[in-house]
């Protein structure tokens, strides 16, 4: 053994990294050189030089940047929720299964049949994402595929109250549901980063859930025994 050989070998590894690629993912934008700018603009480098000389100069000086979206899995659970109001019956399964109890649901009897016990009009549907740990048990619990995890993750905020997702927020937000626990979306090849899924019929396993399905199919699949209050 030659003293110093191991040290030299270690320096060789770092030297290899010096000439090798960098694995940094730059977000939200990436600085590009002149070649990268041309590639991003979809034209060849000489034509960029002649057609957009200012852009080329900026690229040479290192001021040109292109937006970068990090690659996420379609199952990615962002700190956001997607909620389809039409699919929701107000059963509050999600609120019951939330380990932290941060989903607040207030319902009034009513809805489609106006008959008590079958469907409810939803008065309040608040999710306090400031306390949420995004375990997605509520999504797992939703029998009607009304609640989905969202893919959004840029929701940092200066005001704690703004982290509470209200019913209005949820309705207004663009719908990019994560495919987490939604195999039907995966089978359909849906990617939350490509397009929004505004159509509530495509989002769930059932186009229009009925009361029969509520009592027979879904609940029985999930519970072999009686629901017990605890």
């Amino acid at each position, binding site marked *: *053994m*030659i*003293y*110093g*050989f*191991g*040290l030299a070998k*270690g*320096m060789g*590894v*770092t*030297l290899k*990294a*010096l000439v*090798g*690629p*960098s*694995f*940094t993912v*730059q977000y939200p934008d990436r*600085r590009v050189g002149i070649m990268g700018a041309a590639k991003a603009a979809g034209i060849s480098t000489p034509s960029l030089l002649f057609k957009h000389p200012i852009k080329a100069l900026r690229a040479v*000086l*290192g*001021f040109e940047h292109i937006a970068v979206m990090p690659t996420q899995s379609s199952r990615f659970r962002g700190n956001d929720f997607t909620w389809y109001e039409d699919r929701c019956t107000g059963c509050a399964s999600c609120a019951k299964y939330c380990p932290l109890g941060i989903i607040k649901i207030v319902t009034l009897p009513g809805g489609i049949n106006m008959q008590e016990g079958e469907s409810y009009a939803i008065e309040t549907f608040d999710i306090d994402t400031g306390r949420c740990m995004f375990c997605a048990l509520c999504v797992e619990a939703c029998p009607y595929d009304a609640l989905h995890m969202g893919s959004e993750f840029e929701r940092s905020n200066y005001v704690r109250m703004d982290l509470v997702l209200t019913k209005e927020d949820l309705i207004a937000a663009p719908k990019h549901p994560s495919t987490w626990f939604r195999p039907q979306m995966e089978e359909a090849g849906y990617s939350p980063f490509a397009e929004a899924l505004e159509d509530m019929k495509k989002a769930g396993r059932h186009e229009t859930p009925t009361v029969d399905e509520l009592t027979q199919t879904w609940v029985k699949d999930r519970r072999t025994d009686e629901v017990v209050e605890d």
Partner: protein
Amino acid sequence: MPDPFDSILYQYVYCTLSSTDDVACVGSGLFGGGLLPGGLEWLAYVLTAVTIVAVLINAILGGVLMMIWGERRLLGRFQGRTGPNRWGPFGLLTPIADAVKTMFKEDVMPTVSDRLVFTAAPILMLFPALLIYAVLPFGAGTWLADINVALLFIIAIGGANVLAIVAAALGSGNRYAMFSAMRSVAMLISYEIPLVISLIGVLMLSGSLSLVAIVNAQTLPFFIVQPLGFFVFLVASMAELNRTPFDVAEAESEIVAGYMTDYSSMKFGLFFLSEFAATIATSGVITAVFLGGWHGFDPIPSQIWFIGKMVAVLAVIVWIRASWPRLRIDQIMNFAWKALFELTLINLVVSGILLLIWPSPSTTELWYMAGINWVVFLASIYIFGKVLGPKHDPVKAGNIQPDVTLSDSDAPALPTGGGD
């Protein structure tokens, strides 16, 4: 008193200002020279000195900023990252942004601190780092002062920054800082000795302590002729600079930030600045003493050669920083006293004998010397590694004995009570 015509820097500025009738000034200087009326030569002298010092200090600051950028960028690449690239072209403005941010930070003063000493420490730290530049020859004729004891001066001044570290530690009253100060003092006292002795071989070859004379004496760069001296000097100066693997004085994983723990704002900035200024200065000394200084081939100006060699030395220092872990303080002391000190003595004896054989060596004889010195270098490194190196063979990952077991049924019996 340095002669103003000794350095072309002086000459240029001095001749621009002074209306001296010295022959050396004829035809040099801007605007034909003589901006000041006659009889004011002394003022020209003073103004020249002030101008050059101001230019140099600003150049040092610029160099430090460039080095901060370069080090971070290079470290990033060594680690497979990109490094700073957001602010300005290739992130070049990042250190300026850092500096601005540092200035606007709150200046925290610990309540138990000795205010005067606490404030004086960063200034004390910067002062020796800047003084080294006074004697560095940046190129042919480009130096501030060519004093005849320049090398000794550099070593003497370079050791003074430990006083600042001790001042910082005592001033802030922090116990991590105290550890840092203890370590620095112990390390400095140990590494000063090989640092000085390693230069004696060079002195014997060049016959002068002046850096200009040493550069001029290098028909062959001295790192070829004096590999052992070069190695020891590089290692010892890295220890003096607190660079990895000798950065025990500010080991952030052990003693937080060492003597800088309680510092913030521009006081911290001054520490940072002086550290980098000292690193650049030391790389300049290495360049001048061992790498042939400003010598190079022609179309490229000598100043560029000098700076290029400096940058190469800095890159190696950063490379080492990216690759190696830190040594422990007792191992550092062992290394200084058991390895470096002896290596310098070997170098001294061998160089002395070789100079007895070839009293004033020609270039060919320098090559012979280089050959013998390299053989001695490699052999002594090998022997010292054998004697002082780690006891197990790390390359083979020594003490691993993987035993193959397929399932629980044929697992070997375990040791039962009574030790392994």
